């Protein structure tokens, strides 16, 4: 029965939690996921800040509960837009989603949990990502940690490592003016993880501001300085260049001492930001009431009481479709969006 079916677009943490909450409430969620398995980007992460919980632990719990609850999942399936027409839960409201080749999946409500894209560090050409072998992103490092193979391209251990914050965040030059929120704490976490693996290495972290907004974050940052001996330098790196011995020379200005700085390192790690998903524009264009924020993320109805609601009745948001968020925040929003969607179907309240 389509009026009780709720389509959840995206099978990451927010989407999975939304589906679980809906199922617990007696509704019929269906997760539409374009990848071949559930998990979203959580699949690629190693440990989660600030508790250093294994990402796989969270992933396994969510996917296990999805299987246990018998939630319907459509993998390898792309959503083209919101479906409009007769048969929705309310007159004039969306009545499902449009899949590839115009096929329609009817539903009483839709939860958009389509996530974010990772900023392509190649756009910051000055840092030499995909130009120099030993320039990596924080995403690469997570994968390397997962495979237990953190090393330079020749397989050796780095002796000096530089993290660069705000790559693709707070940067008008690449049209990404927003703060991606989680990159600072990710870089701190990874610096500490690399310290565990390379006790003798010098590790530097170049930042504009350190934004430690969450519980336990500031404490982790202090720990990184005092126990892991990470050297934090306030200044943006201007460019990376190759040296004759295969290392990477970086230039920056240490703004606390007011002097330019140049050093050679073995490994550069770019803390890449969260970018609005490329599909947001098409989705927003498919339905009146959906709109984009200037950052390209989907704009919620309001920032406070309607943070999981869209401007269209029957369409709800969860997770990083609307802004950069932590895993915990995404899961919380998944549950909240499910509750709002259930209320919508039950009472007809258009929110």
């Amino acid at each position: 029965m389509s009026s009780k079916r709720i389509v959840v677009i995206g099978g990451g943490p927010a989407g999975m939690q939304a589906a679980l909450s809906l199922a617990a409430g007696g509704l019929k969620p269906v997760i539409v996921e374009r990848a071949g398995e559930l998990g979203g980007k959580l699949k690629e992460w190693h440990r989660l800040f600030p508790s250093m919980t294994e990402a796989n632990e969270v992933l396994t719990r969510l996917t296990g509960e999805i299987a246990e609850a018998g939630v319907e999942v459509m993998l390898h399936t792309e959503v083209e837009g919101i479906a409009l027409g007769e048969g929705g839960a309310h007159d004039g409201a969306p009545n499902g989603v449009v899949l590839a080749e115009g096929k329609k999946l009817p539903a009483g409500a839709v939860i958009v949990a389509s996530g974010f894209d990772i900023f392509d560090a190649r756009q910051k050409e000055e840092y030499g990502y995909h130009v120099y072998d030993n320039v990596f992103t924080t995403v690469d490092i997570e994968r390397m940690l997962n495979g237990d193979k953190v090393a330079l391209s020749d397989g050796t251990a780095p002796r000096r490592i530089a993290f660069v914050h705000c790559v693709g965040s707070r940067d008008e030059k690449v049209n990404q003016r927003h703060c991606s929120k989680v990159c600072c704490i990710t870089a701190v976490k990874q610096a500490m993880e690399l310290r565990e693996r390379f006790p003798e290495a010098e590790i530097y972290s170049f930042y504009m501001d350190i934004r430690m907004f969450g519980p336990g974050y500031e404490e982790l940052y202090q720990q990184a300085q005092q126990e892991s001996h990470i050297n934090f330098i306030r200044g943006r790196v201007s460019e990376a260049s190759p040296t004759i011995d295969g290392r990477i020379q970086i230039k920056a200005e240490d703004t606390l001492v007011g002097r330019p700085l140049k050093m050679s390192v073995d490994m550069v790690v770019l803390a890449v930001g969260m970018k609005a998903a490329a599909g947001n524009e098409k989705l927003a264009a498919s339905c009146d009431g959906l709109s984009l924020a200037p950052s390209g993320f989907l704009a919620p109805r309001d920032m406070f009481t309607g943070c999981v609601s869209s401007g269209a009745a029957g369409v709800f948001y969860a997770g990083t479709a609307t802004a950069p968020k932590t895993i915990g925040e995404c899961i919380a929003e998944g549950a909240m969006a499910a509750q709002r969607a259930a209320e919508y179907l039950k009472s007809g309240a258009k929110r």
Partner: protein
Amino acid sequence: MKRSSWKEYEKEIADDHYYYARSCIRQNFFPGSETTFLRIMREALGKDIYDDPRHTSCTGIGYHSDIVPLDTTMAVVARQFALMTEAGYENIAISCITSFGLYTEILETWHEFPETEARARENLFKATGREFRKPANIAHTSDIVFHNREVIAAQAVRKLVNAETGAPLNIVEHIGCHYAKIFPKSGIGGSEFPYVLAGMVEEWGGRVVDYPERRHCCGFGFRNYIVQANRGFSIANSRKKLESMAPYKPDMMVANCPGCAMFLDKWQYAIAEMENVTYGADGRGIPVLTYEEMAGLVLGYDPWDMGMQMHQVDTEQVLQKMGVRYDPAAKFLGRAGKFIGAPAAAAVNTFSGDRIYRIKT
């Protein structure tokens, strides 16, 4: 180095019929390079290019030194466009990097702020009675050589290789800051990894040297040099580049900016005098060529016809490596074989038996 990213920054370059805008500095320090460019265009490539004696300085140096007001600069650039329009051309080929940057900047300004274009048109008309059309295509002359690099390679008499060993020459390429650092889309390869000279070097058999200070300014920087009190900044920046490239043992440098070619060449002499340091694998300095000279050598042109005797660092070491036949006795012979005078040997060119001219004594 993986260079594939340069392809994301390509631009349209006109194929023929150019209006040539010369460079003030080059006409003084490398006059043979502009002549060589015209020769390559007409003889090797069969292109139509108009060398207009009426055009003037673009005022770029005065503009960047805060001596010439922007309105004046715009009126002067508008006059160049008017001369081009009157001559029946619409593709402008600009010899100087600073002029190229300035023309690009003015066209962008006119695009963003149309009232400034209207004012420039009005000022030009009041002053000269001239009107103009904006160029359909704007290219630096190195863009045009890059555009035709494969045609030149097909006519190559020799390659950028060591004639004895067959090994590619190690070549440092240096791009003028005003080429693409102001508007990355205006340059082949963008601002971080410009490919305009590297593309020529690779096409003609050489090997590009990637060194830490590759993107650093040559040190000219108008305020660095023209304000005499700042001149130390100029030579310090050149020295930083030379120190950075020296371990790679480059056979030569090639530049596409008049100021860069001049300063990277002539500051080597000053550094030799000041610090007794001479760069280059065998203490004879690192020759600095213009891209026209590099292309001319590939095409088999005579180095002295191209004005290569004007260099501070002697270029014979490159000629010898490439197997170029040249007449040493003809180096300082001008037209009709008239001796034009030879400079005293300088500390940077320490051939055995040379007389060393030292300014310190």
